[in-house]
């Protein structure tokens, strides 16, 4: 077995390193496949099925995010079967969830010509869970991509505060017995928030500003800098609106963080702008 694999994507012959996924190979070949649940720093969850492609000889379609290429594999990324499956995936998700803060899902609907309104039926509409000072959970938006579970689990944070509970249509993210987050094992690192693609998990500051109609993407500046707490040297991106920090993230390509932070780096910044409320000792 050599170190390279030669295969065909949409009629093009491509040679990629052994161990490359179909998704990565398709991107290299200039035929990227859409994804919702896939995240560059998390193991593929295989859940959304937006990335399915046709592999010759395979009975069903194949998830490109996790399947590794094999020599001589013949892949089609836009066959009729593929397009139908993708459109149905988009329709099903958009018919059940609130996609208003989910750009990747909105794009999938647009690109596949989905008509979610044809379905009707049950949705995941439910009250917002507002149980801690740092982030808000609006599971009506959740597409159950597993990213938060993976980020909280062995892919990054290793806290294992949340998992999937329930089955079928009623499967949902849970911190154990439907507890509020402060009663759970959560350490409030916000890494789940960082990876959530739908706004189902959202920092409290952003949520409040959005509620009040004060969140303005165009007016927000972002600055890359370094965290001011411990000696690990995490890269930060400070999102500033009207000279106030309104959000802290970490660049996904930062070698120290891979986009992850701890509770202090992500949330403890408030002291920086408390001088207005002076008189503190």
């Amino acid at each position: 077995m050599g170190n390279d694999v030669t295969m065909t994507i949409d009629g093009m012959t491509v040679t990629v390193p052994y161990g490359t996924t179909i998704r990565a190979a398709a991107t290299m070949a200039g035929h990227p496949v859409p994804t919702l649940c896939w995240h560059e720093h998390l193991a593929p969850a295989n859940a959304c099925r937006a990335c399915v492609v046709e592999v010759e000889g395979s009975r069903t379609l194949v998830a490109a995010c996790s399947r590794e290429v094999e020599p001589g594999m013949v892949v089609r990324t836009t066959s009729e079967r593929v397009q139908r499956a993708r459109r149905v995936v988009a329709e099903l998700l958009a018919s059940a969830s609130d996609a208003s803060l989910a750009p990747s899902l909105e794009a999938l609907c647009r690109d596949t010509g989905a008509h979610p309104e044809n379905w009707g039926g049950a949705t995941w509409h439910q009250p917002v869970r507002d149980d801690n000072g740092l982030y808000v959970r609006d599971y009506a938006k959740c597409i159950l991509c597993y990213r938060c579970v993976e980020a909280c689990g062995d892919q990054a944070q290793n806290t294992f505060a949340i998992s999937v509970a329930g089955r079928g249509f009623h499967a949902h993210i849970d911190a154990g017995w439907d507890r509020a987050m402060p009663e759970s094992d959560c350490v409030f690192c916000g890494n789940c928030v960082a990876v959530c693609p739908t706004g189902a998990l959202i920092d409290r500051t952003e949520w409040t500003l959005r509620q009040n109609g004060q969140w303005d993407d165009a007016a927000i500046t972002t600055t890359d800098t370094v965290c001011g707490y411990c000696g690990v040297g995490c890269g930060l991106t400070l999102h500033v609106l009207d000279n106030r920090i309104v959000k802290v993230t970490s660049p996904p390509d930062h070698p120290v963080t891979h986009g992850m932070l701890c509770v202090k780096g992500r949330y403890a910044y408030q002291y920086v702008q408390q001088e207005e409320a002076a008189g503190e000792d």
Partner: protein
Amino acid sequence: MVRRLLPDNESVLPLLSEERWRARGYDRALAQAAALGPDGVIEWVTAAHITGRGGAAFPTGKKWASVARTTDPIKYVVMNADESELGTFKDRVLLSGDPWGPLTGLAIAAYAVGARDAFLYVRGEYPEIEALLKDAFGWTRWAGPLADRLTFHLYRGGGAYIAGEETALINSIEGKRPEPRVKPPFPTQRGLWDHPTVIQNVETLANVALVLAHDPEWYRAVGTPSAPGTKLIAVSGHVRRPGVYEVPMGFPLWPVLMDPDYGGGIGGSGRLQAVLIGGAAGTWLTADECREARLDNESLRAYGASLGSGAMMVFDDTVNIWRILGQVARFFAHESCGQCVPCRIGTQRLVEQLTGDRQPDYQQLRELGEAMRDASICGLGQTAPQALLSYLDRPALWR
């Protein structure tokens, strides 16, 4: 009538007695396995063309060979007795009538691939089977080294149909949510605790014991060339004599419904409307199709059907098939693990469409069904729309 898997004259001997074990030929089977050595056993199982009886009909010898080949010193074997498919109860009948067959097959599988630990995953609603198996473990006192060298671990399912899917079953034994894993890697490459694992249906293992108790030639004497041996068929619904029947592979379907030795004729109104073959995830066969069909996957392919787990649910002409489709949809919506979008939301939408007041758009339904079949992770979502799709293909069933 053939009786191979189901005990015949031996039934007079006490169920868990050593005599009965010998009378069934399982002492010979273990001795034969030891004489052949692991490679020899795999050669015999391959030569006998045993295919999986749990639904997917994968060649058993091939599965074992791939596990035996791996360099990992730790390997596992698993008996899948989770049997939760609608209308399927053949493993229960088999285990309660002949626990020795599957157990002997399991010991042979472990020997062939080099496993020291054997796992039995038993459906939670089968407490009597569980008790029986526990008692049967006492055989290590006399069954010889192939059984004695093994450690048996018995796990009880928690009432989820999906846990019978092999990778979900692995997760369940590992203490995780029974969510299927993506394949590849297959359990034969990365199974229980990431070690190569053979997972086999109860009935498959019983077939293994038979092959070793006799020989591949004897085994192939019944059935078809591509699918030798016999198959247990669980017949339920509108027949006079519901039950589990053993037939040679390739046996005609019609006598299984009509023959006094089998179903004994259509019950209810006495007029057959259709058979759902292969369980809830199965295919509708119209009465006309039932007259011609034969019970093996090769012949059933012409109807877009397969044997699946070997369930046949029979419906007379008073039944509203549309409503049955609604029930089937409810079953899958309830049993979906919820991991992947097509199945998690698709099964819900199927219920809504099939049980709602509105006349659904068949084209839209078909697209949903095809997308579920094509894009779901596991067999559950892939086959959940099967009954519906086969209904849409058969206007004769529409009302």
